[in-house]
């Protein structure tokens, strides 16, 4: 018998309340309960980074966080990155550099790259590559992605 828990958290700056079972991942609740479909399910085991979000500013795989763990905490998803004024510079640079092909991994890459630039506004290429090691792209290769991140850091 599922025992649902009542969770209150801040998601993309807004207070959100939802019911979930303890076994549900944050990824599952974001997509299926809260309708935030930008966060993608790839491997569902922590290897691919498609489901990346930040939890209290820390980059995490939302497939490896239980939704009940975010009680009282703050989550930012890909939907929280652009503003009313327009795209985030990272999003803009991903477009300019054509740093995507199918686009499935892109939300994860953008969220991960933003977490990097938030703590290191001027990373080296090596630092970008190491930081993004937990994000897999199976279409394009990584050069364009790395270039987009470095360009966004410059701007």
């Amino acid at each position: 018998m599922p025992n649902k828990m009542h969770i209150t958290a801040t998601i993309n700056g807004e207070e959100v309340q939802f019911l979930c079972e303890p076994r549900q991942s944050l990824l599952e609740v974001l997509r299926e309960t809260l309708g935030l479909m930008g966060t993608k399910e790839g491997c569902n085991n922590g290897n691919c980074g498609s489901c990346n979000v930040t939890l209290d500013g820390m980059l995490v795989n939302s497939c490896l966080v239980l939704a009940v763990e975010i009680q009282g905490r703050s989550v930012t998803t890909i939907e929280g990155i652009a503003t009313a004024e327009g795209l985030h510079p990272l999003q803009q640079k991903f477009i300019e550099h054509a740093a995507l092909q199918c686009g499935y991994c892109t939300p994860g890459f953008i969220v991960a790259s933003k977490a990097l630039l938030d703590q290191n506004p001027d990373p080296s290429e090596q630092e970008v590559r190491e930081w993004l090691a937990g994000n897999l792209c199976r279409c394009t290769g990584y050069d364009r992605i790395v270039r987009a991140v470095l360009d966004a850091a410059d701007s």
Partner: protein
Amino acid sequence: MLHATSIMASIDSTRRSGMQAFDYVVPKKVEEVITLLANGNGDARILCGGTDLLVQLREGRRKAGLVIDIKSIPELTQIKFDPEHELRIGAAASCSQICSDPNVIKHYPGLVDAIKLIGGVQIQNRASVGGNLCNASPAADSIPALIVHEAVCNIAGPNGVHTLPVEEFCIAPGQNALQAGEFLVSINVPTPKEKFGAGYLRFIPRNEMDIAVVGAGASVFLADEGKRFGFAKVALGAVAPTPLFVSEAGDFLAEKAVTRENIKEAARIAQSIARPITDLRGTAEHRKHLCAVLVERALDKAIERAGGQYAQ
């Protein structure tokens, strides 16, 4: 069409039923965890970062009726350094928390070598060293490094608190020495003496986000202005059913001069004791070869950090 539909249906049901239902609690004290474990009928599981546990629950490799999230117990997430005695790492402290701790960076670079290798940033931000230990993987990166630092586990259970050296904690692949009702509270790592140095490195096909083909940790304490070994310790990962403390390699070096020949001989001893298997990550033969190479390099790293001087 029917075939495709049935595949989709099966993918969908696997995903949705990914984890069996369980209860979830967030205790605030160690004593509460002990009570919860005692009442848990053996299917209570401790949750720290979840990077192993949630994957194992999803894949059905472990079962849980109750998940106990210990991250709200201050003692479990704290890192405390006492220069006179030891570093105490709460079992739930995350890898990134440990690797950004100024005392850990300053006094335990050999531990940082190993801990910063566990997964990418996303995993570092969640995974705990306590969990790496409890998961008892033969290839766990932190364990050889903890062994050569003479780290000790602090274990709490129904009969009180007791300690166990890290090298005795893992007993088989995926199995640790915790008895029913016990859990790992913290890990004590003795404060390094002057002229102590340690290092860890591993061989993997890519640069990050991989599991060790072989891992090697070494520590040394040097005498005679860095020209002679006081003691040395060597431990290996991924070459036996558990992380392997190779006391013979360190014992060989004790009291000997810091020479290339002695270091190579210690590496050969470690290599001869390793008993790797062939699996998808590498052949037994390749792993044997890597043991000697990595132990030599790990010893070199430890000697450099200890301010050693090689004799000709």
